[in-house]
């Protein structure tokens, strides 16, 4: 009993530590003071000002647009790759599998700077395409990991059965494989979306002059004097993310259940 109480007490302290920055963020988004100082005085002022801060809103939409494209491309590349790998009997298979997740262990700082050097070597300016490519390179290994976890548990007999019953590859893909891996496609895409949406480093190095994403706005705001609208927009995004996360958990739970039946 004592052990249980001590355990819960320890967990409480750790979770307090874990949620301190989030609590500070939400609290300060409703605090009247511009300099994040106490005592706390309730005010919705920063939410009002957020909606007239066109630069912040524009950069938020830039981030969403970039992250949507990144998530989509990453998950398509990862799905094709994993399908190809599952068909392949090559000896290179293991090598390819560790090669594709290599970008996970290279610091983003180095990935970003090396792409910047690539631009210099071919004599191009920073542009949207290279920004998108940079985001895809760092996000797509995550989608690969999610898909791999799902496809390793997949039954090969289903594909063979489908083929022996006369279905061609395309029909097998649409009717057998796709429904099986769809939850992983969704989860992998969402993961890649979030990696990109929150990615500051790659954007910071590769964004075209004059454009901006939300993380870049946040960084320059921290560097050159903070505007509390950032707290407000981050609180809104946190709420939105948790909602999407719960939705995915529910959706995946549903799909899992429907497969159990």
């Amino acid at each position, binding site marked *: 009993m004592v052990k*249980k109480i001590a*355990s*819960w007490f*320890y*967990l409480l302290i*750790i979770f307090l530590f*874990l949620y*301190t*920055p*989030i609590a*500070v*963020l939400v609290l300060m988004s409703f605090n009247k003071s511009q300099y*994040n*100082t*106490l005592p706390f005085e309730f005010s919705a002022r920063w939410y009002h000002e957020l909606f007239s801060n066109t630069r912040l809103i524009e950069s938020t939409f830039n981030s969403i647009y970039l992250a949507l494209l990144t998530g989509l491309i990453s998950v398509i*590349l*990862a799905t*094709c*790759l994993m*399908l*190809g790998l599952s*068909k*392949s*009997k*090559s000896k290179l298979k293991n090598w*390819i599998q560790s090669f*594709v997740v290599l*970008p996970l*262990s*290279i*610091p*983003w*700082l*180095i*990935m970003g*700077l*090396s*792409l*910047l*050097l690539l631009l*210099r*070597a071919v004599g191009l300016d920073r542009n949207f395409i290279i920004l998108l*490519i*940079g985001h*895809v*390179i760092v996000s*797509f290994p995550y989608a690969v990991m999610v898909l791999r976890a799902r496809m390793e548990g997949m039954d090969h007999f289903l594909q063979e059965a489908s083929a022996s019953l006369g279905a061609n*590859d395309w029909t097998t893909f649409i009717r057998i494989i796709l429904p099986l891996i769809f939850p992983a496609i969704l989860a992998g895409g969402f993961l890649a979306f979030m990696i990109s949406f*929150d990615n*500051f*480093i790659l954007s910071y190095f590769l964004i075209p002059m004059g454009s901006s994403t939300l*993380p870049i706005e*946040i960084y320059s705001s*921290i560097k050159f004097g903070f505007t509390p609208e*950032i707290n407000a927009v*981050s609180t809104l*995004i946190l709420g939105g*993310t*948790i909602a999407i*996360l719960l939705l995915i958990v529910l959706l995946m739970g549903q799909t899992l259940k429907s497969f159990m039946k």
Partner: protein
Amino acid sequence: MRKSILLMSPAMFMLFAFGIIPLFIMLYYSFLSDGAEASFTLDNYINFFKKAFYLQLTWKTIRMSLIVTFICLLISYPVAYIMAKVIQKGKNLLLLLIIIPFWTSQLVRAYSWMTFLQDGGILDYLLRKLHLIGDGGLGILFTQTAVIISLVHIFFPYMVLTIYMSLEKVDLSLLEASRSLGASSWETFRRIILPLSKPGIITGAILIFVPSLGVFVEPRILGGTEGSVIGTVIEDQFFEIYGWNFGSAIAFILLAMVFLSLWLLSRLTKED
């Protein structure tokens, strides 16, 4: 067979063209001398290893990463153990609570710590209300301590998850057997639980130590002048000093450190 190659080729092309080739371009630049007539040189690397400043910086970065990894291990192990073996209810909720902070912006979290730790900030305010400190201020912000706090906060959930996953697999009957054979709790922990959770500890250490070597955002925001690490110095080379060749050399030294520690840590798991 040809179909599988066709399916794999877009991703492989992408990785080669925009992941590997840029690294080789960076390697190439790291061997170039500055000035109008660039020629092949080893000077960039020699300069790094000759100057005490850079060697101290390297050691400081490694030390910081070790401290962060060690603190993460210390605070994560009990959390993972409690979740895997002590409590029965609420595991999934706790796992969800561990994961949610992953989805908040790294920058915003760093900024929140700034708000929390600064002199006159929330912690300062609370401690002064409780008369635990005087009016002198906390003095934590813009030191390496602040950087370490924020990195531990970002990374320890990884360690909780990896240790939890390896502890989850440990059979409770093993622990009962050990106890009924007269082993004390400490002995059971040291001889049974700890060895069985080693893979989780090492995976966690890889996920924490390796990225810690390359951080530069948290040291920039929270570390002040005291916080400079290899990552911030590389960024300075590229964006403040415009020493791209020297910056490339430092980046490659960092990359070598990353791969060396990956190799060392993954060897630890293979030994058993």
